[in-house]
């Protein structure tokens, strides 16, 4: 197998991971108009909670995964009820600033609960993997890709084709009108954040073996995810996936061809965001 194919596969897998993180950001943005900068924090919370429940394999992987998602969803729900709910009628920027506060609280709470010592993030199926030519793709990564694809489809279908999904979109577009149409907005607001939290946790658990289990790493990957999400203007799931895959592949190729340029991956992300913002039609650029 050619070197090119290998780096392409690595890039695509990385891209799916970025897309997984981006999906939660888009979901919350579409449901509440708020850019959730705390997303990386929720992802980290999910991953750390997973490690504790999994407890080096003493409990089943699926159980730990479920428990971590439920816990993160609950905490996201509490955050929504205490903080986000207070600013639903205000400028979405207020909401975004609140999520910055959430990120700070989550990051340092995780520091207090789980300590500063770096931990190993367990993978499903241990360290085994598929061999494609000279390249080993771990079964965990294969699973991440499969779950990712399933999740993109499910969320896309939910938002686009179900009654509840339409209600989500109606609320984020014209809250008062949605209310007048009889949509129970408070329940939906809570639902958006709880589901968003669960998606974040799932993404965190799937991504952390690759990025490393630290809050910094998961905050950092959020930047890439945001870059991908900006390509879809924080709304379009297909375009975000394309963007995420493109970023992943571009990074992988850059590492292959330009190994000496420090920070080539970050420069690429900045370039992608800049490009996405500059090429977007003016009226579509976020406030």
């Amino acid at each position, binding site marked *: 197998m050619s070197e090119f194919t290998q780096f392409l596969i690595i890039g695509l897998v990385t891209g799916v991971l970025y897309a997984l993180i981006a999906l939660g950001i888009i979901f919350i943005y579409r449901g509440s108009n708020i850019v959730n900068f705390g997303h990386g924090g929720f992802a980290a919370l999910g991953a750390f909670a997973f490690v504790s429940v999994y407890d080096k394999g003493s409990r089943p992987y699926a159980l730990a995964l479920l428990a971590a998602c439920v816990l993160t969803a609950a905490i996201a729900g509490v955050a929504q009820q205490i903080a986000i709910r207070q600013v639903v009628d205000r400028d979405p*920027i207020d909401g975004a600033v609140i999520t910055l*506060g959430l990120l700070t609280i989550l*990051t340092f709470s995780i520091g*207090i609960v789980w300590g500063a010592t770096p931990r190993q993030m367990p993978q499903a199926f241990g360290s085994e993997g598929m061999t494609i030519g000279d390249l080993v793709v771990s079964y965990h990564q294969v699973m991440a890709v499969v779950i990712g694809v399933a999740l993109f489809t499910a969320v896309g279908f939910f938002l686009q084709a179900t009654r509840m999904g339409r209600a989500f979109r109606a609320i984020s577009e014209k809250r008062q009108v949605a209310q007048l149409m009889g949509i129970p907005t408070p329940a939906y607001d809570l639902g958006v954040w709880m589901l968003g939290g669960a998606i974040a946790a799932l993404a965190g658990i799937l991504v952390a073996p690759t990025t490393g289990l630290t809050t910094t790493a998961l905050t950092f990957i959020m930047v890439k995810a945001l870059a991908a999400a900006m390509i879809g203007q924080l709304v379009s799931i297909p375009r975000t996936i394309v963007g995420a895959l493109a970023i992943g592949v571009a990074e992988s190729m850059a590492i292959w061809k330009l190994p000496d340029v420090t*920070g080539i991956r970050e420069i690429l992300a*900045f370039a992608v*965001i800049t490009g996405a913002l500059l090429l977007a039609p003016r009226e579509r650029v976020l*406030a």
Partner: protein
Amino acid sequence: MNRTDEAESSERTSVGEAHRAPTQVNPLWRLFVARQAMRGGVLASRGQAMLATERRRRQGLQRRWEGATPTQRRVLTAVAVVAASVYPFIVDSVWTYVALLAIVGSVIGLSFIVLIGWSGLVSFAQATLMGIGAYTAFHFDRAGWPFPIAILGSGLVVAAAAAIMGIPGLRLRGLSLGILTLAFAGVGDGAVFANRWFTGGVQAGAVLKPASLFGIDLVTNRSFYYASWAVLLLLLIALRNIQRRSSGRTFLAVKSSEAGAIATGLNPSGVKIEAFVLSGFLAGVAGALFAYSLRSLAAYSFAVPVSLNLAVVSVVGGVNNLIGALLAGFVYAFAPALVTDWGISGDWVWIGTGASLILLVIVNPTGLGGLAARWLNLPDRPEPIGPVRSARSAPPRARLLEHTRSDLSGRGLLLSVDALSQSFGGVSALRDVSLEVQRGSITTLIGPNGAGKSTLFRVVTGQIKPDHGRVAFAGNDITTVASHKRAQRALSWTYQSNQLFGELTVAENLMVALHRHRPWDILTDAVGLPASTRRERSLRQEADELLELSQLGAFRDRRVSDLPFGAQRRVDVTRAVALRPSLLLLDEPATGMNPEETADFGEYLRRLHDDRDVTLLFIEHDMELVMSLSDYVYVLDFGQLIAEGTAAQVRANPRVIDVYLGKG
């Protein structure tokens, strides 16, 4: 419940109260009872007495603290200055170091104030900028440059970096800009601070010599503390100067309304770049101070999460008031130090900071600085320069009334629109429209909804470039000239909806228009050069003259957003007049006015035209206003001119009657 019942119930409650100690009853409940009694019409006098007592009590509560008096403020300032001066002599070196960090935090807070508070921009890369400043200071130090040069140099280098960061974000505000700057912070982490040459190599590390000033090495924390304080004080004075002068107004103008800024001849992109540059300079200075305080740098001090944390602390401190920066600095350095000193993990401080950020956003978005300002009875912005009250009593000088910038000696063609066509996605809004405006005339453009009037307005003011045709003004082709440049060239306009600078006062709105902003204004303003002060005084005087002309004197120092609608309209037109236009273009100025206001407004337009020799072109619905004012009328329907002529001619034109009244 009928009246007797109600009266009885309130009677019973009152009796019940009398048995308990009446003074301990919840005041709200007392008020409620009193109201009930009043509504019942029984025991009214008693109820009223209770209400009066309640009112007195409430007033008493309010009177307890109405904010500090000027004397109290002076005493507080003096105490603060003395405390800050003797501080390093009462505490040990470690706590002096904490104070040094607080100064660094304050300067970072200032950089956020310029961006968020003044300009409505966001940056999540201030730690990155600060880091670039810190390492630049290290390179200056290694090259043997003295400390003041290193600080200035770091400021300038980071100002350039901030401009690079800001340029792609010029058309963005708010969240998109936040995401863009976050990506820039990522570049800092991955590329800039991972560059071994820049960070001094892995083995050597970035280690600085002690700062030296006039040949004296500031080895101890104590000596460097005073140097840092001096820097912070200088920055505070400079920013205060800017706030009080035209460049400060310019920032707020662009923040309040970009469209309004363009209409007054400002280039919003340029002003935003200035904000980025100034903010970057401050972050660079903060970085250099940080470098000389630590004297040993590590890249993780400037990582992406730190940028986010700095944003959090600065917003907690408050970005509307310079005091906010000092409080942000205090929280940034002292809160973790104090808490750690008590044996609690510093993580808790950050959790507390995050929680207070959320609380403040919900309860009081102005932050701690806003609370302090209220407590100290300080305005959000310092008092502006110049004779704030005196000018009103002085008779207006006739200078402004006598001449305008336009050369109106001759009559002739002022504006000509030639064969203009414009379509939007296949729908044509204007088809081959040509019209002319003669100098000194009052020309009107009328037409039913959707006729293309507003499209024409947008083409003439330069908001859209036409598909075909050209626009000439005072003999020059301006078809491709940028909108704000047209405003500088004596073509002035008001939008259909007010685009006033809501955060500025009426006088300040006019002052923005009266002054042609130059990028270097910010330097002369910061230093407070006498020329800048003189300019402020004369601008204020000119604004006063315009206020006299427009009979807006009573609103002079009121925030525009607090004014009634009719007055806002008048400010809008007066602001356009302040640009000394030869042509004033008004897009449906009388919309939303009642007949009385409209008549009054027509009077005002007539006076502007007669006294100041302004040529008027306006788009209007109100036929009475059109017919009473216009010398010449153009009628537009479905993107085409269907009639033109004097008011009387147009009124008699059968096609116009068809369009307006429907075919009989």
